[in-house]
Structures are given as structure tokens and as C-alpha cells.
């Protein structure tokens, strides 16, 4: 086993040498990573099939293609992203320059999860590389084939001085977390998230935690039932429900519930046929432990749809439970499997109350054509994100993706990943000239009321006043003025001026 201290020290030496700072170096590494994806797609699909019985389509759309798209976006925008920001100046800074630089943190740790073992590990890694950090990559040991793939391929494409893969289970990871990191990015369960956060305490390491929770789906009678059911069932069954943003439970009126159940049965047959076990498109549960946990959730329930399972294959049929009480086990923990419990309420207000009585989820889903109710839910509940009239798809936008409360802290995707791994260092450039020093001399002792008044005048805020805009307008105005004068002069003396 690799010594974590040695690994971190190597990376730290590389970082201190300044190797990862030039944007050309970062682009070179990112392009190599892109080649890794493009040249090894089949192997990635194979690893995902081994670990999770992931179908080709899911593996492509949610892992390989997803990674490639995000990476291409990073590569084409990186030169812009690294440019320092120029915030607007106020009157007091008229003679100064203001910048906000994007500094890399240093040596960062990225810990992936097992459900999307390649995507959830390497997407943040790409952002960390883009931001100029050195990275320790820790794939989840539970997705064995994927971890092996990452450990084998990364050293072949990326500079091992700056990016290394650390493999191991709980004891090895515990040892790794004792090292000093400048940033830790963790995707996984809330309980382990708390352990990571506690480990970060020693060196006050900033963290991003992408955790989970019970993401509710609210469905009312104004929504097109067939379409809504398809989208909800799809979101639930992708990766056999093992998705952090999978719709966890359904919340609706009794009427809607009954109609939904009927529709869902048909939708499932359309998706997977009469015996989903035979369908190549339905995933499997990642481990025996997780499988047993899910079987436990089904106990004491009579499924309205589904309910069959096979331990040998770790197969579980998409199942809908309608005989659910609020304190049943299936409503106490994140399902993370192909089981959809349904809880009934009388209206949107009750749904809001129910959702707010629980921990803040990673995402809230709202299926409704009633704009008022949709806004009611958006404005009165808190969640990492919200998706109206669909599931999962917000992951495909460039919006910040992350949790709140126990569902996580921090966010990423697109430029937000780069921002996550950059320290925003503000910089004020002042000059030592006579004018600046005279104006600023009111701050020095001996103090006086007059000095105070002058300072307040200099610091005063002018509503909507943008000095740059003001100067530009003045300049154009002056040009207009001079042009008019010039034209007048030419017209008055044109005979003389154009005398042949």
C-alpha cells in the first residue's frame, strides 16, 4: 500500500515548484484526460457493467459522455476563467486598480462515490486540475472495477508528479484523512460526510460535501399524468435508484396516488417488459450489504407494484409502496434503491409542511401546471436544487449543483467546479503618488472633525453610479461636441477650405 504521507509530500513539492500554475500546463493535462475518456470508452463501459450492471446507454449518457461534455466545456473556457476579475470601482478607488485573482489552493483530495464511480470521481478532479491544484484521487473501493480502471489509467495519461490515485478501504482512507490537504471534495453519504468534515478540522481545510437525503416528488392533478409518471419512474429506475438525486418518495393526494400507481405499472412494462429481471436496461444493487438493506425496507409492506427480488443477482424489481406511514423505515432513511414509497397529503400547503418537517433534501421535484402551487413550493421549502416537471435533468445544466443542510455544502459543475477549487484573492493596487497620498491623508492622526468629514465624502456611495460608464459617456459627449464645432467651422468656411 502506498504511504499517504509520501504521496502528499510528492504532490506538495510539485505544487510548490509552481508546475501546475501555467494555464498551458493545465490545458495539456486536461486534454490528456479527455484522451483518456475517448480512448478507453469501452473499458469504462465494461467496468461500470461489472460494478453495477449499468446498461450502455446509462453509462454513456450519465458517465462517459457527461464527463466528456464537461471537460470540453472546461477546456474551451479555461483561458477566460483564469483571468482575474475586475470589480467595479468606487469613487474612493478612482486612482487605484482592483482585481480578484483565482489562486489554486494547493494539494486537494477528491473522494468519489460508488454509484457513478467514474463520473463522480473524475468530474471534480477535472475542475481541480483546471484550477491549478495537485490532486489525490480516491475512488470508492465499493465499485471495484471502476476503481481499478481509474488507478490503472490515470498514471498513463496524467503527470504523476501532480496527480495520483490512492486506493483503499476504510482504514486506508482514515489514514489518508490525517494528512494535511488544502481542500477536500467528498461525494457520498451524510454520515461519512460528517467524518470527513471532522477530519478537516485539524488544519481548517475547506470542504465541499455532496451528500444525499430524501428528495421528495410532489405531484398534483394539474400535471399531465402520463408524462409525469414516465419522468418520475425513469428518474427512480436509472441505476436501479442508486442516484443521489433520484426521486426518493412521492407526495400527492390519494386520488393522484391511485391514478399514478395504475399509470406506473404500464410505464414499467413499457420500459422493462413483463419481467424486468430479463431487461438488460435495469441495473443491479452494488453490494450484498446495500441489497439486504433494501430488502429490509420492504418488510411489513405489501407492494402495490413490483416487490420481487433475487439475492443471487442482487436484483430488485422497481417497487411502489402505498401502505406507508411517516415513521416507517422506508421513510426514515434515504432509499437509494428502486423502491418508491408514496405519502398522501391534501394539498400543496400540507406538502410544504411535510417537506419542511424533514432535513433539507438535495433536490425537490414538483410536477404541476398550477403556477401558484409551484411557486409556493419553491419559495417555502429549502433544498439543494429544484426541478419542476422532470427529474434528474437539472444535472445537465450549468447551474450550481450542491446540497444545503444535511444534504451538503458547496456546489459544482461547469465553472462552479473551477471556482470551488480556487481561492478568490482580492488585490488592491494603490500608487504612492502625490494626489492619492494627499486625498488619503485625512486618515492619519492627529484626528479632527474636518478630516472625518472629508473621509466620509470620499467613501460616500452614489446610487447606480458607475465611474467607467460616466467617463465613457463624457468622452463620447466630448467627441460629439467637437465634431459639431468642427462641422460648423467647415460649413462656414467651406468655400475657402475647398477652393480649387
Amino acid at each position, binding site marked *: 500500500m502506498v504511504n499517504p504521507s509520501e504521496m502528499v509530500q510528492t504532490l506538495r513539492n510539485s505544487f510548490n515548484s509552481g508546475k501546475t500554475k501555467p494555464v498551458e500546463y493545465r490545458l495539456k493535462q486536461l486534454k490528456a484526460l479527455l484522451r483518456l475518456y475517448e480512448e478507453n470508452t469501452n473499458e469504462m463501459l465494461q467496468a461500470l457493467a461489472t460494478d453495477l450492471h449499468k446498461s450502455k446507454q446509462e453509462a454513456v449518457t450519465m458517465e462517459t459522455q457527461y464527463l466528456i461534455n464537461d471537460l470540453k466545456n472546461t477546456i474551451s473556457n479555461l483561458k477566460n476563467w483564469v483571468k482575474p476579475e475586475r470589480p467595479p470601482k468606487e469613487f474612493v478607488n478612482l486612482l487605484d486598480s482592483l482585481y480578484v485573482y483565482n489562486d489554486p489552493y494547493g494539494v486537494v483530495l477528491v473522494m468519489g462515490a460508488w454509484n457513478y464511480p467514474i463520473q463522480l470521481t473524475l468530474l471534480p478532479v477535472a475542475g481541480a486540475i483546471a484550477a491549478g491544484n495537485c490532486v489525490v484521487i480516491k475512488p470508492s473501493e465499493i465499485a471495484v472495477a471502476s476503481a481499478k480502471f481509474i488507478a490503472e489509467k490515470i498514471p498513463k495519461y496524467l503527470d504523476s508528479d501532480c496527480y495520483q490515485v490512492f486506493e483503499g478501504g476504510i482504514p486506508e482512507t482514515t489514514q489518508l484523512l490525517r494528512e494535511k490537504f488544502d481542500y477536500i471534495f467528498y461525494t457520498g453519504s451524510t454520515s461519512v460526510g460528517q467524518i470527513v468534515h471532522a477530519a478537516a478540522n*485539524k488544519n481548517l481545510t475547506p470542504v465541499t460535501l455532496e451528500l444525499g437525503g430524501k428528495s421528495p416528488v410532489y405531484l398534483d392533478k394539474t*400535471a399531465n399524468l402520463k408524462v409525469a409518471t*414516465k419522468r418520475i419512474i425513469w428518474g427512480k429506475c436509472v441505476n436501479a435508484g442508486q442516484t443521489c438525486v433520484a426521486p426518493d418518495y412521492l407526495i400527492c393526494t390519494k386520488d393522484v396516488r391511485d391514478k399514478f400507481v395504475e399509470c406506473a405499472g404500464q410505464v414499467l412494462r413499457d420500459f422493462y417488459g413483463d419481467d424486468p429481471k430479463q431487461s438488460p436496461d435495469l441495473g443491479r444493487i452494488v453490494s450484498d450489504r446495500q441489497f439486504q438493506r433494501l430488502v429490509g425496507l420492504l418488510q411489513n409492506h405489501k407492494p402495490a407494484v413490483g416487490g420481487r427480488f433475487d439475492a443471487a443477482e442482487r436484483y430488485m424489481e422497481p417497487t411502489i409502496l402505498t401502505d406507508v406511514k411517516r415513521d416507517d423505515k422506508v421513510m426514515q432513511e434515504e432509499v437509494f434503491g428502486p423502491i418508491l414509497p408514496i405519502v398522501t397529503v391534501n394539498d400543496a400547503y400540507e406538502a410544504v409542511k411535510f417537506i419542511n418537517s424533514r432535513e433539507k433534501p438535495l433536490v425537490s421535484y414538483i410536477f404541476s401546471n398550477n403556477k401558484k402551487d409551484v411557486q409556493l413550493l419553491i419559495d417555502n421549502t429549502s433544498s439543494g436544487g429544484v426541478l419542476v*416537471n422532470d427529474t434528474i435533468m437539472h444535472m445537465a445544466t450549468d447551474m450550481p449543483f450542491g446540497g444545503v443542510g444535511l444534504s451538503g455544502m458547496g456546489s459544482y459543475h461547469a465553472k462552479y467546479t473551477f471556482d470551488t477549487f480556487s481561492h478568490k*484573492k*482580492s*488585490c488592491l493596487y494603490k500608487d504612492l503618488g502625490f494626489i492619492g497620498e494627499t486625498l488619503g491623508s485625512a486618515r492619519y492622526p492627529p484626528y479632527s472633525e474636518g478630516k472625518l468629514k472629508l473621509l466620509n465624502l470620499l467613501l460616500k456611495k452614489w446610487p447606480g453610479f458607475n465611474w467607467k460608464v460616466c467617463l465613457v459617456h463624457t468622452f463620447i459627449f466630448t467627441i460629439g461636441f467637437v465634431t459639431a464645432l468642427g462641422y460648423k467651422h467647415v460649413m462656414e468656411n467651406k468655400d475657402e477650405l475647398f477652393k480649387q
Partner: protein
Amino acid sequence: MTHEVQPNGYKPFVIDVEEAKLEKTHEEVVEAARKSFKSGKTKPLKFRLEQLKGLEKFLTECENELVKALDQDLGKHRQEVLMTEIDLLKHELRQTAMELSKWLKPEAPPKSWVNFLDGVLVYSDPYGVVLVIGAWNYPLLLLLGPFIGAIAGGNCVILKPSELAPASAKTIATYLPRYLDRDSYQVVCGGVQETTHLLKIQFDYIFFTGSTSVGKIVHQAASKFLTPVTLELGGKSPVFVDDTVDIVTTARRILWGKCLNAGQTCIAPDYLLCSKNVEERFIEAAKTILDEFYGEGVKVSPYWSKIVSERHYKRLMGMVSDGEVAIGGFGDPMERTITPTILINVKPDDLVMREEIFGPILPIINVNSALEAINFITEGDKPLALYVFTKRKDVKDLFLNGTSSGNVTINDTIMHIMTENLPFGGVGASGMGNYHGKYGFDTFTHKKGVLVRGLGALTEKPQFIRYPPYSDFKTTLSSIVTAKRRSIPGWWFKWILVFGLGVAFAYGVQWVRNG
């Protein structure tokens, strides 16, 4: 004689105020705030603006009380109180009030083609009940500054002023509640024990300003509920001076930064790095400048602050014996004042170089080049601020690229906090997170991405490619549709589309007339 202040506060005329007693337990206080938050009271813009106005009124009407309290706690002169605390707060309040309606609007990030028919918005949600813990060196600024951002963000706030500035804590606890909504904003006073107890309660955000060691305790407490935190800590903020700058102006700005609040400022220039030659010229200039600032003697100058406590006074006097005193070195234990002191021939492992000074002592370490200075700086923890005095661009760039710090100011000290448009915060041991201006609002709000799709046929038709049963065709089509392309071009695209429609319409009308 005491006058009772009316609920809507104005020229209070009260002396001999009783100890600000907390009538409720900490749990009850937080529960009341939580109830207020759940009621949705703090969400509307109007409410937030009213509260910000109330806070400004507090600062205006209680100015004399606050100035008096700061004189008691730190011997701070009125101008320093106004310049570095009250007026700064008022400027920030005004800017926040002016911009808040704009900040509250959900942001519309660029859309990709696949979301053409969708609504994509990022909302700024308040976190809920937040805890703001202040520090003793700027008891108003460092408590109420974050408070502004928290109110603007729509949160309910528990304020915990530092017990080491007791007069300021008492004044805030007594008067502030009269100007703000009492259910949503409460002040809780107390020492280490009370704060430890408070930290056991669940908050939705914690903002702490203070020392690194206490910062770790706050961070640890936050682990239990995974409460996000901003920690504004400290460190040794270095100043580098080369020989290209005017030494008098440079020395004046450095000494101003060092002497403010008798050096008890988190971003005070901690120690100076320069060549022997610059050191000599610096000390020459310093003598004149200190005379300019404080005249006859610092001890009798009304512009010179006290050290906050006996413990800190003793700690600082212990450092005076390091190296050699070039200027100052005198302390008055009765008044708890220490004269501005410059130490030379200091070694890197002296006490004065091992911990953050936080006092009016400026040690000088000799280096022969910018590179040497950078190597020295990068051996220690990342500081909160870095100051570089030079006219050379290559030297500026060397420091900017070769070091990491919370913030940097070139050719001045302290001034980067006078600008609300620059994020203010630390990195590494000097802290995490930032605030000031909109950054304060952003700190106290959760950015919730909202995607709104339609259930209609137009949106649903193309979705077939994602549903099982899967196929290679669906997979390929999916890849094509989601492949990264440039975002929908900017605002002008809309106009071009409209223009095109107009042209098409004209042709259409023509065709109809002819046909």
C-alpha cells in the same frame, strides 16, 4: 438619572444602565428565531430594508453611547471609532440597501440549446437561523458587518458580541433590540462557557471572527449538524518594501496600518521584510512620522488606543525583549498602553516572529531580494493579508504568483477593506469564506438552482431517447443532443430573431397581397 427609551428609539439619554440580562435560555432564544423564520417574516424585501434602516438608525442615534463604550474597552479615539467602525458600517448599509432589490432577483445563467424551452434560474435562499460571533478588537464592525449580510440574505440572526470588549457588548445588547424586530434578531452575551453552550444548538450558518484556535472549536461544533461556516481568522501579515518606493509615504502608510487600534487589527502589517539599507531609511522616516501622528508622547496622545487586557499587555511586553529596540519599547501597565515599537536584528524563531503580534510592535527581518522574502513568507501559514511596496511590475507579479494569502494590497495597508466590491476573507489557517458588500449577501444565502420544464408535447416528444428500452440509436442521438456547444448567444440574438421575423412578415404580407 435615567430616562426610559421609547420602543422606536431616538436620542437616548440613559446613564447607569443595568446589566443586559438574558431573560430566556439559549435554546428558547434560538427557538423564537426559528419560529420567526418559519413564519416567512424575514423574506420580503420590504422587511429586510426596514431592518437595515433600523440598524442604521441605531448607529446614528446611539453613536455617543457606542463611542463611549469603545473608549472604555480600548481607549479608542472617536475618529477611529467612526472611521473604522461606525461610518464603514453605514456605508455598507447604504450600499446594501441600494443594491438589495437587484441582488434578490433570481439570476438567469446562460442556457445551453438543450434547455431552450426551459426556465433556468438560480435563487438566493436564506439559510435560516444564523449565528454571528464577533471579535473584541472592532466590536461593532466585526459583529454588525456580517450582520448586514445576514439580514440582507433574509435570515434570522443570533448575535454574540465578544465578552472581551464588555462595554461594547453591553451597549449593543441594550440598545440594538430596540431598533430591530426582536423575534428575528437577538443578542446573546457571555463568555467561553455560554458560547460553548450556544454552539451545541443547531444553526443553519455560523460566521465567526477571531483567533485561529477558537475558529477550530467553532468548526468542530459545526461538524455535528454539517453547518456551513465562514471563519475570519488571523495570521502574520507580512509587508515587503524594496528600494524603488518613496520611503516617507511608504513608512507613513505602514505605520498608520500598524498603529490603528494600537496594532490590534487582524490585517495590521505584522512584520516587515526589507534590506538593511531600506531598514535604516525606514526607521529614520518612522521617527518623524510617529511624531507627526502622536506629537509629544504617545502615552498622552488622545489618538492612541489601549491594549485590550492585562493578559495581552503582558504577552506583548514579553516580545519587546526580542532583537533590539530601534524605536519605542515602553509600556505603561496602569494605562495598558505600549508605545509604537520597532525591533531590528530579530531572529525567525524569536517569540515576536512565532505568533501573530496583534499589538504595536513591528519587527524587521532583513532580506536581500523579493525572492528571499517570498521564500520566508511561504514557509509559514498563509496570512490574511500581504502587503508589497514596490514600483516594479515584475516584483508585484512575483509576489502575486509566488504566495497565497487572503488578500493583497500593493503600496498601502488595510485599505482593501474600504472597498465593498472586493471579497474579504482568509485562506488556509487565516480562514475560509469571505464577505463585504454582495459577498456578504452571497455568504448568507444558499444558491438554489431551479430548472422549470414543460409537460407538453413539444418538450416530451424528444424525451423518448432517454427512456428504456435502450438502444444504440438512442444512445448516439442522446450524445449528439447533449454534446457541448456554445451557449445560446447573448441578448442580441433575440433582436436578430425579431428582426428576422419582421422581414419574414413583410414578405408574407407581400405574398398575400400578390396572391
